């Protein structure tokens, strides 16, 4: 069953009365539960915008063309209240944003724990999970460092730890390897893959990097606000989900 299913997804940014940007021009998309999908396409093609809509950060435009539809595990979420969408983001999704976005006044661990707090997890249990998530991304020894004291790649990995800490159903990552060298980006991908395997989590990765695309089950290609190619799930094609995909070494 599709965990995320969208139809007629449009987004127009209005810069002024005359100047508008049609970032999404009516997209139909379906992402299966347990899939690891890459969204690729040229810069400005609407990848981030689509990810934000799938992550319930934006509501799709309601007022031109056929009404937009967005289903999360079969539930219509296109018209939910801000509060309901916030709750879903907090409890069921994990985000890595294009420019990693950490809170500068908080340490790495505190940044990770923000996600736990919003999901309603506190205290020792949260701390434990936070440290585990930082260990996964290889930053346990940097837990008390502020973002300014971390390299770009380390900051990106803190953001990934924050996305993973609640073991959310869906991980939405926008260029999660953009600032990493190929070894590190292989590690991050392996981490997503590990989560995807062990917990059946759905992973959506927006990327420019074709290696990242190849490491995923399926590549959705976008151009000019539209999906050009929905791709084929290599795992389903091979009919052997556990072994058919290239598995990058999991870091210890």
């Amino acid at each position, binding site marked *: 069953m599709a965990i995320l299913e969208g139809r007629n997804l449009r987004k127009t940014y209005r810069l002024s009365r005359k100047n508008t940007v049609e970032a999404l021009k009516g997209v139909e998309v379906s992402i299966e539960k347990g899939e690891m999908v890459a969204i690729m396409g040229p810069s400005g093609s609407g990848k981030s915008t689509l990810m934000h809509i799938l992550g319930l950060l*934006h509501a799709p435009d309601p007022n031109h063309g056929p009404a937009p539809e967005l289903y999360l595990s079969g539930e219509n979420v296109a018209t939910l209240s*801000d509060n309901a969408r*916030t709750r879903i983001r907090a409890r069921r999704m994990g985000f890595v944003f294009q420019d990693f*976005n*950490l809170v500068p*006044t908080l340490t790495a661990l505190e940044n990770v724990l*923000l*996600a736990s707090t*919003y999901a309603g997890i506190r205290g020792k249990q949260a701390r434990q999970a936070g440290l585990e998530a930082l260990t996964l991304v290889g930053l346990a020894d940097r837990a008390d460092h502020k973002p300014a004291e971390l390299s770009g790649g380390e900051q990106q990995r803190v953001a990934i730890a924050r996305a993973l800490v609640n073991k959310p159903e869906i991980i939405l990552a926008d260029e999660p390897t953009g600032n990493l060298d190929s070894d590190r980006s292989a590690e991050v991908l392996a981490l997503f893959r590990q989560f995807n395997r062990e917990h059946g989590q759905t992973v959506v990765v927006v990327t420019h990097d074709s290696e990242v695309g190849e490491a995923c089950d399926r590549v959705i290609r976008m151009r000019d606000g539209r999906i050009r190619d929905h791709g084929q799930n290599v795992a389903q094609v091979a009919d052997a989900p556990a072994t058919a995909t290239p598995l990058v070494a999991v870091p210890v």
Partner: protein
Amino acid sequence: MRLLRDLGRRKLRSALTITGITIGIMALVVFGSMANKIDALVKGGSTYYQDKVTVSAKGGYMGLGGVLSTKMADQIEALDGVALAVPTVDMLQSDDSGAVNMGVPPMIDGFVGGATAGYETFKLSYATGRGLTAADEGQNVVVLGSDLAHQFNARVGDTVTLRAVKFQVVGILEPTLTAPDNAAEVPLAAAQQLFMKTLPSIVADKLSGGEIATGIVAYPKAGVDPQKIADEINASISGVTPMTGKDFDKQIGSATSMLNAILIGIGLISLLVGGLSVINTTAMSVAERTREIGIKRAIGASRWRIRREIVAESAFIGLVGGLLGLALGYAITTLGNDAGRESATILFDLTFGTAFSSVAFATILGALAGFIPAWGASRMDPVTALRYE
């Protein structure tokens, strides 16, 4: 903790805001305490004068002014509705002490101890020693008000000098926050002698010391309106001005309530300036953190949580400013009163109510100041906030 750290990061701005509030609250505390003191003075007077008629020589006031005769007391007591009338001799402790003085200048009050027992309802209690009695007539003894005792640094048994005459202290009053704090009570005869010395000798020679009074205090019979007695006095005795409690309230009360309004006004204006500074700082710091708010919203912080964080932070700034302002205000009023004790000029009365409401006011003001930017920030689209530069 997080809140403290966030404040710490914006040290300078937070410090400036807190300073603004501190000054505002300090002004409110100081002026409020001054108003309290005036209020207590006036209330004390109002209570004291409420149930009696105080007669002075024409043009005089509150038993001060020209010379009356003690015989007039009998004349007034004979009036319908008057239960008791007693003579008093009141004068300033020194001739120049009334010049620059807020509140009541140090006074010498002469009366026959115990003469009004059963009639006087304004109760005085004694910190040490005793009150005056009829047996004290002819003796040079004195009961000191609490502020005055401080000024003289006197205890029961000590000798103090009033208008160049030595008096033995037999009692010290508990603080009343009103006129008696600054009064020296002496037997009537002693006061008459002191008063004689203040008169030009041509006048004094014609008077017999034992008959001098500066005021007559008349107590109405139960159920009789003091105003009726004042009217009777006006009708039957010339050359005197009777004053009732209502007269006191009208003249003194309205003058001081005006003064109080001005004092509180000054305090509130300073506070308004402090308040605007909190609004400014909060608005700036919220704008500065738009991105941060976007991150938090994006990963699942509700609008209410964002509002709560910002409001808690600005309320905390208000609270800190309020407490610092209170501390400063406390220091100023305490030092001011200590300095004034020398001249028995107690200007401030910092009550718990004033202290509490000033700090509460600062906190609420801070919270309100945070509310406006908090509301705006929390309504922003998370993605827009994330992209904010």
